[in-house]
């Protein structure tokens, strides 16, 4: 498998060959569909992970899903302006079970120490939870760029934004903020078709 430097791709020859298909249609008007023109009006929406800014409790709702509480239940000021969590000094051992394997970042690298409802940027400025992607972006530039170019993070909906909308995944749909590495999973769907099983090791081909 020879590796091509990106700019040496046979892209031009590839485009040139497009019209090379043989055997025309007896009704030439059937060959192509309707042209599509106009601006790309499709909306690109980023999915918002439901967990964002919510702490799961051991309680479950009727569907068996954990009931979440907002950070400010404990970290927000109460009627007297007192921050409960701090006052308590964590007797319940809150968040102790949190699995944290993300470089060797401290909690406060990402969470605003003065108000836990917020995240914080590297320069110390405050960031709302729903804008968490900006947090990831400041340390993972290449992945964020790839994401914006559509080659990281996947999507559903339309490839052609002139004809439909698109939904993008959020970084947090795939990466746990505290343990972002991918874990292993079981593959689905072992191939059973005759061709595949026969060819399983027969792919020696020219290589």
């Amino acid at each position: 498998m020879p590796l091509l430097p990106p700019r040496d791709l046979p892209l031009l020859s590839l485009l040139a060959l497009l019209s090379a298909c043989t055997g025309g249609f007896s009704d030439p008007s059937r060959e192509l569909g309707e042209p599509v023109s106009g601006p790309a009006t499709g909306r690109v929406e980023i999915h918002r992970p439901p967990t964002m800014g919510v702490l799961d409790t051991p309680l479950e709702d009727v569907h068996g899903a954990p009931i979440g509480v907002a950070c400010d239940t404990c970290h927000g000021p109460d009627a007297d302006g007192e921050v409960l969590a701090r006052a308590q000094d964590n007797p319940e051992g809150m968040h102790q079970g949190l699995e944290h394997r993300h470089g060797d970042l401290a909690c406060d690298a990402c969470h605003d120490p003065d108000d836990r409802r917020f995240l914080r940027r590297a320069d110390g400025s405050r960031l709302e939870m729903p804008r968490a992607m900006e947090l990831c972006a400041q340390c993972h530039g290449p992945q964020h760029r790839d994401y914006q170019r559509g080659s990281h993070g996947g999507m559903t909906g339309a490839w052609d934004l002139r004809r439909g909308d698109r939904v993008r995944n959020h970084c947090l749909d795939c990466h746990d903020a505290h343990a972002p590495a991918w874990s292993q999973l079981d593959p689905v769907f072992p191939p059973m078709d005759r061709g595949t099983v026969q060819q399983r090791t027969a792919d020696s081909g020219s290589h």
Partner: protein
Amino acid sequence: MSDTSRRTVFKAMGATLGAGAFARAIAPIVEWTEDLSLDQLLQRHYKELGRDELQVVLRELERKTAEDYGTSVSIADPRPTPGVSFGYALNLTMCIGCRRCAEACHIENNHDRATDNSYIRVLEIDKGTVNLSRATADYDGPVPKADKYYMPVQCHQCDRPPCVNVCPVEATWKEADGIVVVDYDWCIGCRYCEAACPYHARRFNWTKPQIPAEEINPDQAYLSNRIRPQGVMEKCTFCLHRTRRGELPACLEACPTGSRVFGDLNDPASEIRWVLENKRVFVLKEDLGTLPRFFYFFDE
């Protein structure tokens, strides 16, 4: 191609193949004639049909599917969008070998349930090698394994498609948007194309596909995911029933890792063009000169 010349091809094949091979090659037709309605036998090549005639064929196929499979489906004939040229790229750094793509293909394209057929085969390959001869497709989990990488393989929609050239009856051809299609009602099941494909991307329908009515995807197209008859070839069409409407292919949407990038090679602003111009890209078996439209790439 007229029906007469198709019959001539049968004859010519008999002459060059020898009796045994010829019998095997035409077995699909001889043995399963009861499956073919008179209409289908009389049907002309897809490209020879006028607009109205095609509609008759489509409605007849819908009726037949409803009768055979007990559910109503719609079979359309989306044509290539002028100026659009499809390309597909897959990020080997990200793919974890979970086979969700193969599963999505199976469901989307109305594949036979018993054989778990899919147009996508995922190869598990030793890291640091490009040794496809030691690759396996029937690996177990959990994935990804530390010493392996994973390469899903499906039709590369080559611009010099060896499979098209060997078809004795012109039942398979390349369309203006780059997709290589099969006319299942014209295919004689000789399987030359399967042998000619260096990527093992074509499949043969050994049996009449069995799919429970409630699992059938009713959104079908003549040249893609309508339920294939027994004894004909089939292959990935980049989900043309979706992509020609502007939608993404089913395997891309199903990928949990976001390894797949699809789009219009003619559009300089497209995601696929960005990958081709900015990533380390290669094609499989480049030395064969097939000019695939399916690319693989690595993140740096």
